[in-house]
């Protein structure tokens, strides 16, 4: 085990979290990410028993999840495995697929709160009808000139995944919008 001390995307030694307006925002740093891509026409695999979702959707299993990120391509998530070589494990599970480590490619910022407050937040951040951003939805869209994945985990929880290098700007955008909801 290395003795180097990792930093979170926000440049801290521990995940950052904050209350912002009626919502709670937190950096998620323990989830491993790996992209999985299959050849055109190839059968859709079921890594670790996950039923890979259709376009615009996400699924969650036991500590695992996946969301669609492009034609024949998914992002597979593994809670608590950020410090492991999850991409290698996934590649072993789906030997005929292209797997790329994305754990540190993205900053994942979770926002929790009431369904109504989350929907009000969406109206300030992304040009997507909140009625379409229901539980089980995952979309790629623009947010303050950044590209993000918006993954609606539940009525009370959403994850914004933006490129790691943009983490500070993404946090700023989300926090500012959340704080203004009740201003």
């Amino acid at each position: 085990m290395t003795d180097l001390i990792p930093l979170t995307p926000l440049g801290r030694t521990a995940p950052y979290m904050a209350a912002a307006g009626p919502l709670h925002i937190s950096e998620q740093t323990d989830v491993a990410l790996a992209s999985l891509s299959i050849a055109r026409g190839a059968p859709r695999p079921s890594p670790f028993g996950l039923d890979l979702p259709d376009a615009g959707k996400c699924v969650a299993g036991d500590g695992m999840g996946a969301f669609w990120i492009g034609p024949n391509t998914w992002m597979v998530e593994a809670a608590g495995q950020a410090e492991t070589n999850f991409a290698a494990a996934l590649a072993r599970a789906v030997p005929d697929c292209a797997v790329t480590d994305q754990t540190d490619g993205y900053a994942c910022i979770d926002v929790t709160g009431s369904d109504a407050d989350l929907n009000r937040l969406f109206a300030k951040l992304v040009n997507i009808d909140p009625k379409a951003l229901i539980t089980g939805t995952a979309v790629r869209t623009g947010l303050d000139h950044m590209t993000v994945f918006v993954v609606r985990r539940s009525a009370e929880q959403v994850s914004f995944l933006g490129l790691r290098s943009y983490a500070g700007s993404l946090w700023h955008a989300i926090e500012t919008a959340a704080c203004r909801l009740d201003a």
Partner: protein
Amino acid sequence: MTRISGGLIDRTSPIAFRFNGTSYQGYTGDTLASALLGNGVQLVGRSFKYHRPRGVFTAGSEEPNALVELRTGAWQEPNTRATVAELFDGLVAQSQNHIGSLSRDLLAINDLLSPFLSAGFYYKTFMWPRAFWEKLYEPAIRRAAGLGSLSMQADPDSYDKGFLHCDILIIGAGAAGLAAALTAGRSGAETILVDEDFELGGRLLAESGHLDGVSGQTWAQRVVAELATLPNVRIMPRTTVFGTYDHGIFGAVERVADHLPDSGGKVRQTLWRITSNRAVMATGATERHIPFANNDRPGIMLAGAMRAYANRWAVTPTRTDTDKIAIFTNGDDGHRTALDLITKGVPVLGVVDTRKDAPCFGDYKVFAGAVVSNTKGRHGLTAIEITQNGSSAWHHVGALGVGGGWNPNLHLASHHRARPTWDQSILGFVPPSDGPSGLIPAGAATGQGATAAALASGMQAAQKALSDLGCRTDPIDLPHAGPEPSAQSEFWLVPSPKRRAWVDFQNDVTVKDIALAHQENMRSVEHLKRWTTLGMATDQGKTSNISALAVMAELTGKSIPETGTTVFRPPYTGVSLGVLGGGDTGQDFRPKRLTPTQTWAAAQGAVFVEAGQWMRAQWYPRDGETHWRQSVDREAMAVRSGVGVCDVTTLGKIDVQGKDAGEFLNRIYANTISTLKTGRVRYGLMLREDGILYDDGTCARLGDTHYVVTTTTANAGLVYQRLEFARQCLWPDLDVHLMSTTDAWAQLAVAGPKSRHLLERIVDGFDLSNDAFPFMACAELTVCGGLRARLFRISFSGELAYEIAVPARYGNALMERLIEVGADLGATPYGTEALGVLRIEKGHATANELTGQTTARMLGLERMVSSKKDAIGAIMSRREGLAAERRRLVGFVPIDDGNPIVAGSHLVKPDAAQTFENDEGWITSACYSPHLKSPIALGYLADGDTRMGEELIAANPLEQQQTRVRVVSAHFVDPDGNRLRD
């Protein structure tokens, strides 16, 4: 005081405000304009060009005259229309566009000079001396003809933006809009109702008529109350839809805190992008006036506005409540104003009606077949001249209402360039039939301005929208509205050959100016506008455009539709740049990308530089270094003599996998990639389709079907996009998978003769010897006790060098560790500036050299463009024009020691004139080389490879700089490349 009875103001809630330093009182529900009128203030501003005294002319956002500077200090905003500025406690406003006091404006001299200031005067004047324009004429004209002034302080307010989606957007909450909203709301459709006013109801608030036995105001309030209970309806007052965009998208600005004395933490305004399936345009109509001599005096306003002030705000536009009011009209609508004023006990002189058979609807005097032919009153109207049956007489009045008919507010329907259609029955333009799809006009915006017709039209528009969307289209019970006489005659102006009659008040355009435009053959509407500036002020000619067309039509003898019409562009009313900016300013104006070593670099006091959106460490100053060159020279020398570490994460990294990955890369790169062995790296060139160099970088083969491509920082996104296009569109048959990993891996360049020594201290038992891991090798390994990493033996500096990649979260710690464990080796962090020096010394090309005009041949790399296979741009790179290119990348040193060479300088022979004809190339990159202790440069020179030792001039004529230079090899350091292979 000229307050009268009734109105929608709250007399129990007085509000104190100041105008031009004087304290006044208004009430909740007032606008600044109504409150000023309630205090008998007629004179509120000066006109744009002639500095004529001006008063409130309208009761809405079409106002041309009553522009003020609202608030003070940094919050001061010029050109605010007093007619839509909601009164709040402590409001402070100043009139604008005058020198000295408002009543004694020194620039009123312009009015006396008006014969010299006609339309187009400055196109013909101020022509010479030419140099005077910028220094004298323009500043003087701007001073005299400006509108409000800026505070010159930063905007202290915050702004926001957002996105809304709905089935039906209803724009305007008058009779038609409310009927539409009720129809749509009750059907269950997701509905958004917006109105620019703070009170919903539109003209229902301004009229005295009844709906089902209750006032229009009460009916509107009841409808709004019901809409507020419907969960599918969002009501947005104080919101202006300013533009129609493609695909049912509308731009809107919500004034969140403009009406509050203190924003209390709220944003000032929010910019909304509203995406609708259908939209109902219930934007109402704007009344037009009738130009006559001296028709611009304070106290003269639109008759419909006068009715609104009386009914909604309980004020009249006279200075005292004993002043009489007259109405000048060409139709029945003007009579309604007289009737409402009489009902409220306001003294009315009578109605001057241009129609010989003018009707009379009550107990008031009608001047039939008459016109108002002149007016008097220095700072406010005191008398009007009525001409009837050839004889004229003066009458004392304190105000005059002018009604010349109503123009539908069809702007939003015309934003896609559709031309409005002339409707002779209403004497106005109506929305075009080929307007934006999904936009359904209704009510007065279509000429259906009578209350009953507007209500029905609104409901039908909503039903049409609902039907289009496949929703229920149940009708609503529309209230009964009484008849509203609306006959009018076609009467456009009162001829006044000797006096000025204003058409466009805000830009001071008169009938005479239009006649002059006609005389100068500026007869098309577009020419007329630009010649006279008619309709080009902040009000965009809402009260003047049609009247101007009518005047031009009379002059040309054509009909109005033959004369032309004008289309509209967004914004409908002015939009502040602050809100268009979306809210974020300063450091947050655009998103920033931080490198994995940002935290450590900042702690070292690094100076950062923007590289695209990235913030990169430019150099790391140390104590005692007072100039950037000291830091950069030290860092560069540390690399040449020991070892340096630089964060190069920003270079693009693209994971390329798949059984056809090699073939795919063969087609992407000009050189061959498929022969690259696993565990090796190759430098690669990408060409554009036209054969010009596109990007360069390395390609590492990590496995049988796994490559990692690197790109330049600037082109990271573009190259990825290009690869995706090739994969998806050009060669979809290839089995290739792409994924960007730029952010996933922190990548550090470790360069210098001691770099191997340094890395040996962190790798976990990995053999770094030259035999085991030679130049251009790559491997996956672990470092620092088990951390997975990728190592590439590549060099940008020309030294023995490596790039090591670790998961991004460990980048910061790895940087710190390398510097720490390499202290005895002289391990030094270096920034982009030293990186640049090192690569210039080595003669490596970068963005400065890859300019979009550069070929592989110019870099001496033509052999890399393989002729054994095809690749993007390969064939085009061999076309005659490029093959004949003779410029080559070479190095330059100054002949006179120490003379810097300026990048961008052009190269000419020493005895040649510095002209384009003699241009032989240019300097692409230049720096001071601490290694050579001399300025050095790279550049493209015609036949450069055969001109070593020749003397040239690097000329920078723009700054009278020229440096004598000698042509040398581009490789100032280790031209044989022994160091990097060591």
